[in-house]
């Protein structure tokens, strides 16, 4: 058995989710190799070579892979991937974008968003917004899998000494091109890997009031998330959305402020270790999953929380 892990990166930094994917690969067993495809991604390859448990790093450094266009990347991964028993990547938006293309090119099914490895061909994944957990078995020759990073404890980023090998093939499907990117800038930790997350919902009333959450977040070293209601109302940008269709988080502490707790939101945070709910509606469904609930007006409670930290 041999596992190819496609690194998640931005051409300069190896994203931490890759370490969780390597952990999933270790549970499958066999040799683990990492593919770093990008443009000017040498530093990422160096970082990948240090990851514990990795035997080889393949680097495809070419302008055609610079923006991780699914059309080009999937041709490369399908070409290399057919020689492995498993091809894995994290279930971020990049992985979700190119990986099903890889599966189709290899004429195999994809197993999306696994949270557990039962054996080399059997995996566990949530369905119906996390309201049911399915165990599925793949009979395909190559198992193409996306991994939910919060389902696996990250391997050590240091300690490995993999060999680095360049991959020459440059696939340009010629059907798509990158135009532009608008990335939200933030000094706070990344939402999906933060130890503490504080999220606001419709109850925040407007975007300015999120400032209260930012202040608490800065004291706790937390990331700030939001419910779909808060995003749709334009309080905060969509990349802050936690839920079935946004980001899946599983921090040590999740503080839900002014969030009712719809099924779709719970799908994104119910694996958090400790959940705190601050809501003035005693009947809000969020209290059914919260370890600590405070029935209070958030406009009193959040500033008080900030002052007491």
């Amino acid at each position, binding site marked *: 058995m041999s596992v190819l892990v496609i690194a998640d990166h931005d051409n300069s930094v190896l994203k931490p989710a890759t370490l969780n994917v390597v952990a999933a690969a270790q549970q499958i067993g066999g040799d683990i190799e990492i593919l770093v495809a990008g443009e000017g991604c040498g530093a990422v390859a160096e970082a990948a070579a240090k990851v514990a448990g990795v035997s080889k790093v393949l680097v495809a450094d070419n302008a055609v892979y610079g923006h991780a266009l699914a059309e080009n990347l999937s041709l490369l991964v399908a070409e290399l991937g057919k020689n492995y028993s498993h091809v894995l990547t994290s279930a971020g938006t990049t992985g979700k974008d190119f990986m099903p293309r890889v599966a*189709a090119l290899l004429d195999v099914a994809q197993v999306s968003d696994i949270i557990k490895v039962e054996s080399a061909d059997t995996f566990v994944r949530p369905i119906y917004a996390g309201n049911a957990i399915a165990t599925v078995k793949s009979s395909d020759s190559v198992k193409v899998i996306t991994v939910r990073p919060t389902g696996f404890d990250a391997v050590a980023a240091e300690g490995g000494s993999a060999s680095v090998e360049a991959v020459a093939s440059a696939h340009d499907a010629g059907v798509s091109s*990158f135009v532009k990117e608008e990335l939200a800038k933030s000094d706070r930790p990344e939402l999906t890997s933060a130890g503490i997350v504080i999220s606001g919902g419709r109850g925040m009333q407007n975007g300015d009031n999120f400032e209260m959450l930012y202040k608490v977040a800065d004291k706790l070293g937390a990331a700030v998330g939001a419910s*779909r209601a808060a995003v749709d109302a334009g309080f905060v940008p969509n*990349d802050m959305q936690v839920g079935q269709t946004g980001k899946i988080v599983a921090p040590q502490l999740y503080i839900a402020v002014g969030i009712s707790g719809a099924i779709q939101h719970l799908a994104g945070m119910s694996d958090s270790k400790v959940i705190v709910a601050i809501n003035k509606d005693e009947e809000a469904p969020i209290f059914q999953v919260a370890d600590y609930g405070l029935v209070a007006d958030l406009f009193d409670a959040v500033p008080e929380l900030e002052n007491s930290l």
Partner: protein
Amino acid sequence: MKVLVAVKRVIDYNVKVRVKSDNTDVDLTNIKMAMNPFCEIAVEEAVRLKEKGVATEVVVVSIGPKASQEQIRTALALGADRGIHIETEEQVQSLAAAKLLKAVVEKEQPQLIILGKQSIDTDNNQTGQMLAALCGYGQGTFASEVVVEGDKVNVTREIDGGLATVSLNLPAVVTTDLRLNEPRYASLPNIMKAKKKPLDIISPADLGVDIAPRLSTVKVEAPAQRQAGVKVGSVAELVDKLKNEAKVI
């Protein structure tokens, strides 16, 4: 240009599912079903393209049991011109769905194919990408804006760090994110008119596609239930518990 939209019949998004006692699947008997929310957004986008004069015809296709025709009729009531129902009682997985849709694409030759980014039952997020791969088309997944310009389409995509825009040659595949648009409601006269719109019914065999599942479900279980928590009386008590009991801050 012609736009093809794929829609799926799924459990209504407000329903809390229950797992069957024999752990074979979730229980869908007597459960309210509806059009997958992302598919509604796909239909709306296609209809808006038609209203802008960009699209000339909107064809809606659904794969599934006979009852899926309800969802096709809904799409027709929202403004699609005609429907194609690929009728099967079998469970159709993403790869098979993509192959069936590819056969329809070859027959219909649409310039733009719009799908939802994921169905809220299987949560796979695969079919659009697989269809694009099989057709050799470009893909604009998780779209929050779609602009057709000549023989290209610019798609703004929701990505983990923010937004990214790609330009795709037509024909292309687009999958919708929630923020692409706000779907309209079907009016009663339009629902009545939709009953008269053409609907072709075909079978997977007609399209020469093998839909045998590649993944088998070993079991389906209810997720672990969280322990009921406690209500605290004040912020001070909350902070105390987080520090000394849960030890998370």
